[in-house]
C-alpha cells in the first residue's frame, strides 16, 4: 500500500472532491467555501475546479442556507452544507431539529433527508466564549440525526462518502485543532463505516473513551500511564449518535474501569450519557465509578493560561485513570 503525507484538512478536501466527482447530485454550500477558499481552507481550489453552482458561497444566513440544504435534499440533491463553526449553528438549529430530524417521522416515512452538515467544533485556539463551543452532545440528543466525529486523517477522508450514502441527515464535527494534523494516508481511497467505535490503543487496566479533538491527548495520557505500567485501552467513539455500546461494554467488562474524556462542559455533556450507559449495562463489572474528564463549567476564556485551565489536559486524564485504578488492579 502506498501512502502520502496528508493533513486532516487535505483529507477532507480529497473526500469532498471525490464526492463531487462521483455523484453530480452532490454540491457544497456555505459561507466563504468558494472565493475565500473556506474559512479553514478545506475547500481551497474547489470553486475553480467545480464552479460556483456546485461550490456555493452563501450570504450570512445560517437558517436559510441550512434549511435550503434540507429542501434541496428533498428535491433530489445530495447537499454538503458547511456551517463555518458549531457556534453559528445555533442560528440554524430550528431547521436541523424541527425539519431535518423530524420530516421522515412526521411524514410517516415518506420524506427522508439525505444531506451532510459539516461544522468545525471546539476550543483551544484562544477564540474566547462565543467561538469555542463543543456542542456535539446537544446534537447527539436528537432522534433522526446521525452524528459523527472524525478524529483521524483516515476518518476525515473516509467518513464523508459513507455519510453521503446515508438516506438520513448526518452531522460531521471537525475539531478546529485537527486541520493541521498531518500523517501518512493510504492512497487507495476507501469509505469507512460510521457505525462502529474503534479501539485506538489496546489495554487491559482501564478503558479511556473519547472522540474528535480529545483523542490525541487521550493517547498521550495512555502513553504516559504505560510508563507506570498502567495499560489503558483507548476507544474512539467516531459515531456519537448512535453510540456503539457493544464496543464500549466489551472493553469495560474486561478492564472493569472507565474514564470518559469530553471537551464539552461536564454537566449534561455526552460524557454523562456514556457514563450512565456503562453503569446501567455493566454495573456489576465495574470496580470503580466511571470517571469523567471534561471542560470546566465556564464560558471559554481568551487568555491562554485560563483557556488551558478550562480545557481537559493530559494530566487531568492521567489523574482520572489513577483514581479509577487506585484500588489495585
Amino acid at each position, binding site marked *: 500500500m502506498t501512502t502520502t503525507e496528508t493533513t486532516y484538512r487535505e483529507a477532507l478536501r480529497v473526500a469532498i472532491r471525490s464526492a463531487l466527482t462521483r455523484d453530480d447530485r452532490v*454540491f457544497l454550500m456555505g459561507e466563504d467555501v468558494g472565493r475565500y477558499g473556506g474559512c479553514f481552507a478545506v475547500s481551497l481550489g474547489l470553486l475553480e475546479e467545480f464552479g460556483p*453552482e456546485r461550490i456555493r458561497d*452563501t*450570504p450570512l*444566513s445560517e*437558517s*436559510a*442556507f*441550512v*434549511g*435550503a*440544504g*434540507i*429542501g*434541496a*435534499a*428533498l*428535491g*433530489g*440533491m445530495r447537499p454538503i452544507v458547511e456551517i463555518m463553526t458549531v457556534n453559528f449553528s445555533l442560528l440554524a438549529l*430550528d*431547521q436541523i431539529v*424541527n*425539519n431535518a430530524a423530524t*420530516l*421522515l*417521522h*412526521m*411524514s*410517516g*416515512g*415518506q*420524506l*427522508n433527508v439525505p444531506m451532510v452538515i459539516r461544522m468545525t467544533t471546539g476550543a483551544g485556539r484562544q477564540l474566547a466564549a462565543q467561538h469555542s463551543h463543543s456542542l456535539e452532545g446537544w446534537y447527539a440528543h436528537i*432522534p*433522526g440525526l*446521525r452524528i459523527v466525529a472524525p478524529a483521524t486523517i483516515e476518518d476525515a477522508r473516509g467518513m464523508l462518502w459513507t455519510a453521503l450514502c446515508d*438516506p*438520513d441527515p448526518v452531522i460531521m464535527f471537525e475539531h478546529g485543532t485537527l486541520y493541521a494534523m498531518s500523517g501518512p494516508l493510504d492512497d487507495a481511497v476507501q469509505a469507512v463505516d460510521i457505525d462502529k467505535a474503534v479501539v485506538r490503543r489496546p489495554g487491559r487496566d482501564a478503558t479511556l473513551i473519547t472522540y474528535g479533538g480529545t483523542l490525541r491527548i487521550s493517547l498521550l495520557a495512555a502513553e504516559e500511564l504505560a510508563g507506570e505500567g498502567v495499560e489503558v485501552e483507548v476507544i474512539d467513539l467516531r459515531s456519537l449518535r448512535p453510540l456503539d455500546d457493544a464496543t464500549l461494554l466489551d472493553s469495560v467488562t474486561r478492564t472493569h474501569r472507565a474514564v470518559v474524556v469530553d471537551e464539552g462542559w461536564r454537566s449534561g455533556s455526552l460524557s454523562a450519557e456514556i457514563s450512565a450507559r456503562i453503569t446501567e449495562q455493566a454495573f456489576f463489572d465495574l470496580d470503580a465509578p466511571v470517571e469523567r474528564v471534561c471542560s470546566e463549567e465556564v464560558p471559554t476564556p481568551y487568555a491562554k493560561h485560563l483557556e488551558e485551565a478550562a480545557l481537559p489536559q493530559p494530566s487531568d486524564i492521567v489523574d482520572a485513570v489513577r483514581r479509577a485504578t487506585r484500588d489495585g488492579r
Partner: protein
Amino acid sequence: MTADGPANETRAKHHRELLQQMLRIRRFEEKCAELYSAAKIRGFLHLYVGEEAVAVGAVGALRPEEALVSTYREHGHALARGVPMESVLAEMYGRSTGCSRGRGGSMHLFDAARRFYGGNAIVGGGLPLAIGLGLADRMQGRRQATACFFGEGAVAEGEFHECMNLASLWRLPVLFACENNRYAMGTALARSHAQTDLALRASSYGMPAWPVDGMDVIAVEEAAHRALAVVRDGGGPCFLELRTYRFRAHSMYDPDRYRDKAEVEQWKVHDPIDGLIGRMRTDGDLTDSDLEAIERELSDELAAAMEAAEAGPLEPVEDLTRFVYSERS
C-alpha cells in the same frame, strides 16, 4: 350569443370546479370543527374558513410536478392539491391510513407523491425548504416552480428575510404566497410590522410582488398564473400578498378576544364562496340544482371519509420508533 357558447361553457365549467373546491374545503373544515368538539380530532386544529379562495386559486395554478410547502393551516392546500380527503381526515383521527400514518395530525399533512411537503408548525419554518426545493429544480434543469404558503405573521421572522434575500439573489424559481389574514394569533398586522404594505416590503428584495384580493378566487388564480409564468421562465422568485381573513378563531383554543365581532361580520360580507356564487348566478352559470348537486356530492364524500377514518386501523404501538431513520432494504 351562440358564438360565445363554447367560451361560456368552459368558463361555466371552470367556475363550477372552483366553487366545488372551495365548498369542499369549507364543508370539510366545518365538519372538522364538530369532530374536534366531539374529541375525535385532538391537538391543535387551525381552520382556513374564509381563506378558501387563496388555496383553490393558487394551488390550482400549479402543475402536478411542482412542489408545494405550507403551514399548520394547510387543510385547504392539501385538499386543493388533491390529497384525498379520506387520508387527510384519517390523519386527524390518528389512523395509520392517514396521509402521515397518524404521526403528524392536522399540522403535518404530507403527500410525497403529490409533492405536498407539508404541514409545518414552526412559523416561517417552511420557507427555507421551499427555496431548497427550488434550488434542486434549478440545479437539475427542471423549469418548474415551487409554491410556498405562509402567513403575514411569518414576515416578521428572520427566516423570512434570509429566504427572500437568498431566493432573489440566486433567482430561485419560488412563488411566495403570503396569506395576509391580518392577524397572527391575536396580533394585528399593524402591531407586528412597521411596514404593513407587505408587497412593498417584498419588492425591496428585488422581486416582482403585488397585492391580490384573496377573497376573489378568480383574481387569485389570475395572479398566480401571471406570477408562475415569471417564475418558471427563470425570472426569479415572485411574491403575492393575498389579502384575506379568517372567519374563525386562530385555533380551537382561541377565545378570539382581540378583534371585534363587527370586523368579522364586515369581512364575512366578502365570503369568497358567496362571491363566486353571486358572480356565477349573474353569468347564468349556476342554478339552484347545480348547487344542490355539489352539496350532495360533498356530503357523500365527507360521509365516506368519516366512515373510512372511523374504521381506519391504528398504527401498531410496536411501530412507534419506525421512521426515525430510514429502513435499510
